[in-house]
């Protein structure tokens, strides 16, 4: 059984006098123990809102509606009250955010912020907690950890702050780590360090990782199963290799064609997707990608496309997917069977 099973998750923001925005619309995916799962998409596709909804971190405001299920180890996280949710947060599920400076408290030393987690979930105090905190900082590669404990976030560089945040996240050996764009704010050589660290942690401790990113290169390097999001829906799910080798959803194809590659020659033309996401808010009826899609047919408009489970264990939400090489496009009924 999967460690985290998200089923038909939807998040709606409604404002009086305006059409409700379906930021997340029927998202389903699962994370197995020890697995690295990616949520990939451009800004506005709902990837961060998905993770915040799972963690119960969306600001409580009128007009916010969260539906569906997020079952973690038998418990539906969406049904929990705040108290029991806080018990799970930090202990069983931890989260790392994009900007380490704004997720650390600027007026509290790093040491205290790490030991706070240890005190809350592992009942550690005083000297023991301090020792454990130093060991944690050491584990994530922060040099001279004893001294760093007394320092404030502004005294650390961006990469070190992100390491400190990771130390706090792994303090209780969580079973699931959610990383929301953990390296987007960092320089590329520092990004490489942090990604290596995350890979190591996953390998050594068996923690499952839900990686939220817009960077297909990061996905290619470390994710086992990829969920591509567009317009608040999962449009394609596949293992890493098949996805990159033979993307089926036109959006995935477009995304891969848009990225300049370091190992491609000078002047090779990119194949961008026409239009932009912003043009279409709130999403059109039918397939959200249809207005930008090169393979659009009449059936694309009207009803949102059903999730098609293909024979090779992958799924996509498209009525006219990219054909596999050497395959005559089969009638849709046969393929979905």
């Amino acid at each position, binding site marked *: 059984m999967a460690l985290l099973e998200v089923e038909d998750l939807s998040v709606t923001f409604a404002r009086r006098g305006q059409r409700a925005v379906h930021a997340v619309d029927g998202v389903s995916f699962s994370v197995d123990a020890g697995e690295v799962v990616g949520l990939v998409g451009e800004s506005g596709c709902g990837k961060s809102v998905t993770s915040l909804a799972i963690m119960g971190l969306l600001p409580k405001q009128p007009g916010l509606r969260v539906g569906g299920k997020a079952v973690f180890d038998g418990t539906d996280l969406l049904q929990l009250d705040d108290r029991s949710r806080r018990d799970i947060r930090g202990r069983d599920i931890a989260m790392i955010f994009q900007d380490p400076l704004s997720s650390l408290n600027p007026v509290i030393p790093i040491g205290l912020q790490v030991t706070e987690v240890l005190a809350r979930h592992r009942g550690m105090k005083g000297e023991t907690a301090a020792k454990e905190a130093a060991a944690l900082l050491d584990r994530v590669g922060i040099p001279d950890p004893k001294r760093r404990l007394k320092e404030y976030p502004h005294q650390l560089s961006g990469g070190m702050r992100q390491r400190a945040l990771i130390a706090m996240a792994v303090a209780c050996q969580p079973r699931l780590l959610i990383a929301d764009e953990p390296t987007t704010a960092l320089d590329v050589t520092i990004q490489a360090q942090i990604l290596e660290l995350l890979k190591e942690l996953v390998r050594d401790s068996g923690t499952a990782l839900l990686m939220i990113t817009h960077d297909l290169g990061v996905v290619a390097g470390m994710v086992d199963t990829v969920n591509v999001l567009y317009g608040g829906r999962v449009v394609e799910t596949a293992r890493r290799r098949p996805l990159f080798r033979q993307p089926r959803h036109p959006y995935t194809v477009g995304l891969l064609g848009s*990225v300049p590659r370091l190992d491609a020659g000078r002047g090779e033309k990119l194949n*961008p997707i026409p239009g*932009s996401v912003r043009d279409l808010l709130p999403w059109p009826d039918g397939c959200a990608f249809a207005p930008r899609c090169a393979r659009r047919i009449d059936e694309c408009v009207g009803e949102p496309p059903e999730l098609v489970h293909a024979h090779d264990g992958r799924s996509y939400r498209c009525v006219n997917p990219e054909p596999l090489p050497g395959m005559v496009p089969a009638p849709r009924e046969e393929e979905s069977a």
Partner: protein
Amino acid sequence: MSENDVLVEVRDLKVHFPIKRGVLFDRVVGQVKAVDGVDLSIARGKTYGLVGESGCGKSTLGRALLQLTPPTAGEVSFDGVELTTLPPGKLRSMRRRMQMIFQDPMSSLDPRQNVESILTEGLQTHGIGTDRTDRRRIIGETLDAVGLPRWALSRYPHEFSGGQRQRIGIARALVLGPELIVADEPVSALDVSIQAQVVNLLDELQDSLGLTYLVIAHDLAVVRHISDTVGVMYLGALVEEAPSDRLYNEPLHPYTRALMSAVPVPDPDVEDRRERILLAGDLPSPANPPSGCRFHTRCPWAQPTRCADERPVLRDIGASRVACHWAEQIASGELRPHGVSAQIVRPEGEGDAPGVVSAPTEPGSYV
């Protein structure tokens, strides 16, 4: 390269910002050497890509080249005219020929000006076009060139998406008919699918108008894609410069190698096979750069001799220019990489590093 082919020539360019301290009297306690001796030349009709991590001085170099930030020392010649000694009036008329595209189109476009007014301003300043109809014609042609509809003229920047805003920024640069365009992180604020649109647009414009580009970016893949020549900067100086393909196939400087190996490639097969060179620690503070070769504190190939006390100069190796004492030995495999322990680097103005960097006094020169 003959004289005629070179549009921009930069010689020993330096930009130093004073570090000031004190309440009543500003004592200068040190200097941030943002750009510290850069030589480069940009061929007419070609693209020069400048890459480096944040704080390496690449943006300052771009601004100093256009004289937006006054250089501390050095020379910049544009089409044979020396810019650093040009009187302000003359410099102003030269600006028509060299334009800039900024990273964030939202903050570089005036929210209270509509697109027509944004595009007309430059034309009026430089006295281009005989009357309103003529200017409208020029603006219309520019809009077509960047792929914006005519109805955009009466709209305001907030009514456009990020990609379209960047097109407005490009149109503003293009409308004056420049020869050189300095693009500072032109696509890094955009989503990947939009990024590709803008990259293609820049490519097409270069083909049709014969533009010369200086593209400044942190994304090596983007820079490699659009540049003919790539220069890699580290702490205020060029460490390597080579034709784009050669830089990728045969990186000679240890920093270039590390940078290349750190860029993720969207291909699982490549990712699994690649050898990664992980650099230890962070970029040292440009206020207090390491002695000798500035990269020696993080370099996996650093040697006990020369690296720490002798600053390497750019020298020609094949078609590349490299600032490394040991480039040949590293390329031949004679020297092997070794472990490096990370050193703590203080963020600007914190902890052990000297003082706070105050904004330079002239408006608009703080990057």
